[in-house]
């Protein structure tokens, strides 16, 4: 009877590891991409490169939206279980 318990604990720890690593890396990567987009967009606007500014702004929006999605996902996981 010990084996199923051990298996269940191992599975849960694996889940904890996958979720912990996945969400952390996702959040930090998305936020960093958003930050690069904001900084580069500001630089491009200052140099009057409007096309580049638009592209970097789009990247910033994408990064921060992904960041927000990861946060929302974490909250949903906690509240639903």
């Amino acid at each position, binding site marked *: 009877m010990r084996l199923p318990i051990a298996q269940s604990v191992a599975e849960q720890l694996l889940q*904890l590891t996958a979720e912990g690593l996945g969400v952390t890396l996702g959040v930090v*990567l998305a936020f960093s991409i958003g930050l690069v987009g904001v900084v580069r967009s500001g630089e491009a606007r200052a140099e009057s490169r409007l096309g580049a500014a638009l592209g970097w702004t789009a990247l910033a929006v994408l990064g921060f939206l992904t960041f927000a999605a990861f946060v929302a996902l974490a909250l949903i996981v906690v509240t639903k279980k």
Partner: protein
Amino acid sequence: MDAADIVLVIVVATALAFDFTNGFHDTANAVATSVGTRALSPKLAVGLAAILNFVGAFISLKVAATIGKGIVESGVVNPTVIFAALVGAISWNLITWYFGLPSSSSHALIGGIVGAALAAAGSGAIIGAGLVDKVLIPGMVAPILAFVAAGLAIVVAYLVAGRQRPGPAIRGFRLGQLASSSLFALAHGTNDAQKTMGIITLALIAHGSLPTTGFDVPTWVIVSSATAIALGTYSGGWRIIRTMGTRIIKMDPAQGFSAQSAGAAVLFSATALGYPLSTTHVISGAVMGAGAAKSVSAVRWGIAGNIAVAWVLTIPAAGAIGAATYGLCRVFGTGAAGPILVSVCAIGLTLAVLGRRSARLRRPAEAQA
């Protein structure tokens, strides 16, 4: 009101006092890195953490169930056992707070429960599998996981955003810390406030106020636990904030953001699985990981070692105090006399220690004036 009712009132009051010390002691976990990197002012950081701790307490009840029915046999638990457990946990919290060590309130509580239950009914009272599978193993894995996650996260952050002009990048990560520290405070509320809810519910079951079948936490227990942890958080534990925010490593905002994000992700995931993790262990692991990934020598390993010693000592020390308290209470019989006398002595001792400490802090200031 009979003796059992009086003991129950003392237990609920003691549990809420523990919850207050938990918020007071663990404020550092949520806000230390934000204060250390100057992303937030201390007052704003503590206020924000208090509100989010309060909100977080309403999100989940899985950890409360683990504390209430997964560690000791509920049949052998009586209100005096729970009272003794709480005295053990509060005492250890105050001792580590006095010395500025960020130890775990959660492990102190679990140690207190195990010690008091052992003293009351022997080793048969302990659910060994629950203690190992739900507390000890996750307790060892979580700080290592937070260490690795924060280490990888800071590498990713530096790779992606490290070549930007330092000014805007630092400001950006400081803003990011507003989000990451808020998430960590919310995660702290979801995991830590539930421990008190579990304890009070267990006391209500032992008293006969709630049925032994199922594990339903009454609404008044949720609201009072959330309020106590939020008030404790607002009161702040500045000594521990100093240790966590600046003394383990000198952090930049990107490291602070990475450490808090890793800590929050691990805590949220653990809460969903019902693991009563130590937020202190998780954030300490994350802070060290974020520091070691940049430079192994940047981590002040001596201070990290002191924290590790406090971790190892927490469960046995709180357990020993819990067991001794139970024994002391039983000297006065099974009624309310033991818990009342112990409460009076504990309050007197705490006030004496706090008075001595504030007098010692006042003396150098008066000498300078």
